[in-house]
């Protein structure tokens, strides 16, 4: 073994033991998460708890469900924003919506929906393009706390300023303030956007697919997974998409080297919008 391999990754082993224990006690499987960023999140969580080490944390977490909930939140929270990557939402509006319009009813799955930012962004685009009442968006996440936030649809005004810029760059047709009501330092998403959205708990590492969808957004989630888990998740999504369905990944994620790649073509170059081919 080359001598620049670290002699022994004791801390890595300790984290592995903690993850094994979590899987066996609580059924959540983080063993196939990419290690570097998982370790960073775990270290931040550990620091917050005041526990001295991962073995100490393991001894406590396996017996203390509340402590485990905190860990789960710490390592699964995804950072998102409305109209994150405005050019992606612009491409959706300009090049995908016309295909969606050919369906009588459109079902869309946002996997890893975090606090609902992308769900509401999609709802805005669909409403502005005349699809109001003809779609349902399913937002799922492993983290129950962010799902509650998604249902509430409350964001700080500071974030709303950032969302507004994204909305404008993404080709928004109205005044973004049409979509929320401001109260004190917060903004609440308007009722018409909530009408056709459903938020539910779903674990991509363990659960089955959620039924036939015309489009699936799975953006900036695969980057946190090791290759085997990437394949599992993509297989699950592929099973939900009929031919002609759309799969949207993050701007730095691709299908290259993945098993399902051969069945998809990137419809909008560089925007990671893939379409399942008609065979």
């Amino acid at each position: 073994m080359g001598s620049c391999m670290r002699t022994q990754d004791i801390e890595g082993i300790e984290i592995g033991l903690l993850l094994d224990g979590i899987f066996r006690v609580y059924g959540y499987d983080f063993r196939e998460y990419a290690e570097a960023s998982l370790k960073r999140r775990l270290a931040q969580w550990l620091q917050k708890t005041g526990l001295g080490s991962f073995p100490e944390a393991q001894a406590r977490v396996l017996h203390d469900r509340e402590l485990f909930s905190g860990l789960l939140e710490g390592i699964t929270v995804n950072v998102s924003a409305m109209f994150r990557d405005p050019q992606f939402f612009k491409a959706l509006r300009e090049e995908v919506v016309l295909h969606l319009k050919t369906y009588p009813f459109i079902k869309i799955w946002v996997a890893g929906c975090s606090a609902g930012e992308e769900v509401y962004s999609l709802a805005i685009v669909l409403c502005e393009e005349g699809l109001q009442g003809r779609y349902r968006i399913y937002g799922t996440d492993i983290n129950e706390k962010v799902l509650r936030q998604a249902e509430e649809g409350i964001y700080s005004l500071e974030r709303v300023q950032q969302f507004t810029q994204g909305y404008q760059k993404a080709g928004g047709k109205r005044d973004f303030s049409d979509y929320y009501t401001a109260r004190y330092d917060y903004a609440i998403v308007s009722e018409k956007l909530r009408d056709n959205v459903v938020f539910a708990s779903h674990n991509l590492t363990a659960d089955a697919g959620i039924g036939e969808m015309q489009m699936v957004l799975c953006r900036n989630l695969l980057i946190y997974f090791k290759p085997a888990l990437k394949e599992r998740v993509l297989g699950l999504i592929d099973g939900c998409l009929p031919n002609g369905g759309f799969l949207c990944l993050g701007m730095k994620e691709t299908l290259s080297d993945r098993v399902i790649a051969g069945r998809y073509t990137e419809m909008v170059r560089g925007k990671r919008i893939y379409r399942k081919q008609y065979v």
Partner: protein
Amino acid sequence: MCSGNSEGYCAVVAGVSMGGVEALRVLLGGLPPDFPLPVIIVHHTRPDSASDLAHLLNASATVAVKEADEGERLESGTAYLAPPNYHLLVERDGTLAFSVDTPVNYARPSIDVLFESAADAFGPGLIGIILTGAGSDGSKGLKVVKDKGGLAIIQDPLDANTDSMPRSAIAAVTADHVLALAEIAPLLCALAGGDRRTGCRRLEEHRNG
């Protein structure tokens, strides 16, 4: 040219902020095409900036310069730039990973995030470099590089376009070298060219075990 066999180090990480394009041009321009280590770089950029810096630098450097791809294996003689709006990390198997976790030190990509993960992956086989820039991102990361046995190089604040980032790093870490920008590439060449006899082997050997 780097002469002799590479016996010393596995990888170089570099962090740079304000004044960074010119600094990277000098640093990468000073490395030969057969430079035996990968160079992994965080350059602070605006989240919405176009990712064309790699093309720009590729034109002037003799090592290959590219924007990092997710899951990519590190290769010697190649410089990897973190894409705008993503943290760049190194996995222990020598592949590159991304995250969209919250900004660290107001930055995404953050130098600390890259350096800490690379220090985990390469330990004493890592060379960390802090160049010109505003703020203090990278100071904590460079300390971790040092703590795990790696080498710390900091651009001389008097030589830097913007001196707060190198000053912050000097305050946080006992630097192995504080150098003018133009002197850093020749030092890397000497270090990677086999000056350190007992260190780790080349990246390829690291990988093949």
